[in-house]
């Protein structure tokens, strides 16, 4: 049973993982290194240790992943996709290096992926999912080019994915899932459209994700609690001002219990192996729970508040 956040160990875990590029786990996830970098670097910033990495090295590697279409790939040589484009932009935002981007190019890539019905494809191959709606809106908002897309249609499409339990799915008619809910609520939040959300109905669905015994949150009914939902459920609850409906203390305890107290890193539950993904979500969750020593994170942009304010408060 853990009673504190071993921040230093997590920092060390992240820095080591960054270097261990040749383990099987790393090679298998080669294609999503951009996401991994975003998770690791944001966690470092939340723990006030972003200075531990070489900014120049990271930034120049990020830029090698940009495709001629303007989009970014998950790693050098791979194909572009909005998922990695957002992570790339977020990483540059962390380092306050958005100015090196050809904003026109990146935003055109994303805007070009909006479909007639307002939805977004992930890449030229046409997969449609509300995750991509969130990604497009979040990314363009950071780049201050939201006017490049049809925001009204984008919002209408997201609202069409709202379901009868108050939640949102990946496409119209699809089941509620905390990850999709985060994406839809986040997109609506960024565009000032949260009045489309039935906050009480969705709030109840979300607060019932908390497992009575462990205090952890699951992603949908009758599933196991998992640290990553500490982010997706929690940030959604915060955006709609219903976070007081869960028991925060219990959730803090669950997250702390998922730490590897010896080697650092956080896992999805106390018994499993740790990884960067869950380390990020655990720390981000603790940030939203106002855990001491962790900087505040913005629930919609999934970036530290000071980074978002830096972007939003300047013209």
């Amino acid at each position, binding site marked *: 049973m853990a009673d504190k956040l071993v921040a230093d160990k997590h920092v060390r875990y992240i820095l080591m993982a960054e270097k261990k590029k040749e383990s099987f786990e790393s090679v298998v996830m080669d294609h999503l290194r951009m996401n991994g970098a975003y998770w690791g670097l944001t966690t470092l910033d939340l723990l006030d240790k972003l200075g531990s990495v070489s900014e120049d090295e990271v930034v120049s590697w990020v830029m090698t992943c940009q495709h001629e279409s303007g989009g970014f790939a998950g790693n050098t040589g791979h194909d572009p996709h909005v998922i990695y484009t957002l992570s790339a932009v977020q990483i540059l935002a962390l380092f306050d290096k958005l100015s090196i981007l050809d904003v026109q190019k990146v935003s055109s890539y994303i805007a070009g992926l909006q479909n007639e019905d307002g939805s977004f494809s992930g890449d030229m191959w046409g*997969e449609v999912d509300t995750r991509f709606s969130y990604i497009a809106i979040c990314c363009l908002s950071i780049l201050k080019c939201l006017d490049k897309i049809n925001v009204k249609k984008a919002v209408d499409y997201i609202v069409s994915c709202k379901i009868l339990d108050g939640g949102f799915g990946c496409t119209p008619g699809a089941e509620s899932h905390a990850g999709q809910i985060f994406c839809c609520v986040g997109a609506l939040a960024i565009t000032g459209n949260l009045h489309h959300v039935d906050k009480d109905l969705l709030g109840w669905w979300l607060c019932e994700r908390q497992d009575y015994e462990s205090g952890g949150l699951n992603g949908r009914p009758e599933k196991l609690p998992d640290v990553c939902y500490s982010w997706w459920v929690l940030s959604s609850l915060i955006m709609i001002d219903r976070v007081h409906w869960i028991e925060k203390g219990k959730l803090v305890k669950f997250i702390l219990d998922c730490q590897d107290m010896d080697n650092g890193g956080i896992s999805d539950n106390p018994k499993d192996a740790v990884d960067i993904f869950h380390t990020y979500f655990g720390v981000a969750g603790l940030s939203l729970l106002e855990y001491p020593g962790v900087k505040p994170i913005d629930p919609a942009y999934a970036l530290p508040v000071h980074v978002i304010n830096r972007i*939003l408060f300047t013209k």
Partner: protein
Amino acid sequence: MHGRPRNASKPEEEAASAAKAVQLRSLQSQFMTNHHDKIYTNEAIELSTKLLEINPEAYTAWNYRKLAVEDRLARIEPDPNLVSAILDEELRVVESALRQNFKSYGAWHHRKWVLSKGHSSVGNELRLLEKFQKLDSRNFHAWNYRRFVVELTNRSEQDELQYTDDMINNNFSNYSAWHNRSVLLSSLLAQNADGFMPNIKIPEEYDFVHSAIFTEPDDQSGWFYHLWLLDQTLNVETPLLTSSWPSHGSSIILSGAGCLSGSSSMFTTFCSESGSFPLILYFDQAVGGVSSSTVTIDSELKGNEGLVWEPIPNKNSQVSCVWVARLKYVSSDPCEYKVKIRVGNSPGIVSSRGYNFNAPYEFVFTAHVHDTVEDSQEGIVSWTDGFDIWDAKSKDLNSLVTLDRLNAEMDFKWRQEAIDSEVECFGILPDSKIGKLTLARLLMAREAMVSDDAVKGVHYEEILQLYNDLMALDSSHYQYYKDEHSKAFLHKVTSSSESLSRHLLRYRDMNNLVCLRLNNLSLSRIASVEKLLFVQMLDLSHNELHSTEGLEAMQLLSCLNLSHNRIRSFSALDSLRHVKQLKVLDVSHNHIGKHSVDTTRYLCSSPLSNSELGQDDVGKQNPGLVTKYWDAYCVLRDLNLKQLDIAGNEIAGEEFSSFVLQVVPKLVWLDGQKKLGN
């Protein structure tokens, strides 16, 4: 890592892993070369197959395969057998990848892509789905894919409904099946399909879902479905007008800013510097299209042609439950005017779900315009002294008569019967959380449907007790039940003139303002605002409120006391920006400035507009402070406060106080001190 136990790996394992890594690395780099050089030979394609077998998440490999398929299709004869062979291979690769990881987005999408080329049979796809849904009946990729196939092949909704029947009968603990059921049923009911009349179908569904809830009360699979059924039972699709201010048959006194001699204790007196008063319409659901053509006003008050109606608070969306127009009057021209309002005079008022407001409603009130006698005083407003008891003969509580919402609804009977039957079922369920919660909701529903005044309010004691029980039984969700308890409590208070008048007073010093005292009641939530539109002074001090959500409809509010609550930020007070009458605000002894996480930031207008902050004089002189206190700035600059209390908050201090005085130059009283220069 899901499903990987946390173990220190042994040296043999590490060696094996390293070897696998080298092999995969080599495969990947060969693949990349093929991809970049656009090599689509059989060998190259076989390589990508191997790669995807090991790593179905390598999305670039799926892209490559699509390019390879297109390349091959372009080179061969348009022979259906040849095409089939190529596409069959793709389907095989997808299936094998899915066996590795049946949650792979890339694999499922590739299959859809192949199918969109007009290949494979419904039978095959449904068989595949059967396999995967047996492995995991909650796999949402499979369910989504199922919907995709159903649409592609025009399978009937009735057949799909039967499928959910089968899945549920097999195992009721299948939220995904219940979810699908609700989507299909919704559609069939909306179409009025054969055999799908709500008055028959909904009661049947209640019976069906009971098996899920009663067998295993802790299993959530049926909960949300039941809640949906309740919503279908309760909610009338056509929008209705719930309340208005002024209300039908009421009399109001209008005046300029200042004091009247001998002001009335029988009627509401409204004083305005701007010479206009708000006309408020409160609908039961969000509607659009409220305008001077759909709402007509018949009166002798001059200057009110082409009235502008505004939705509160959403300027963004043009739909809202609350709509306000401001009628002009001239106080130096005292007279008595009858005002007739006709809502829905012409079609155009439509709910956000697309249903028309189709029963025009007319109401009439009398406005007595008086001249002011003296100049308004700048005395400090007290929350404890200067109050008179509410006159029982006061005519103001006419507004409590909420328009009989269910008049228009013809199939009222089956709704009431369904609720009654559910109440009976849940009444005998042993002490489970879902049992008590559902019963509380059912009783609230029953209260909402009661129109007979004699029976109104009879359920509230039981409802409040149920929520108290739940706070103890399920302490993790204590605050949820607390909020519901507060809502029920306020419904109870406003359920009759008698109970409401126990909380009403008149504030002598301001033309007998109507004051509602709801302090020290452990309220964590505001509710029943539609019944409180006539309130001008509201005391909510010493409660547990953390937001003013809901108060934006109270357009008459000029004094608000929120001291000793749990307000965490000015963004939580954002709804007050719309209460243009507000002159006196007390938010002392709250938690403003104490928390690093802002839970109401996104409920304000889009934060992108934050970059427009600081374009006015205050902003230009104090850019740093405007950024630091952006939410206080947004709220305060939109109001014309005369009196503000902020002491006892972490944000309070020299810097904030001087900032406030710059943003609100006309402020007379700050924390009980009269400001110089005013």
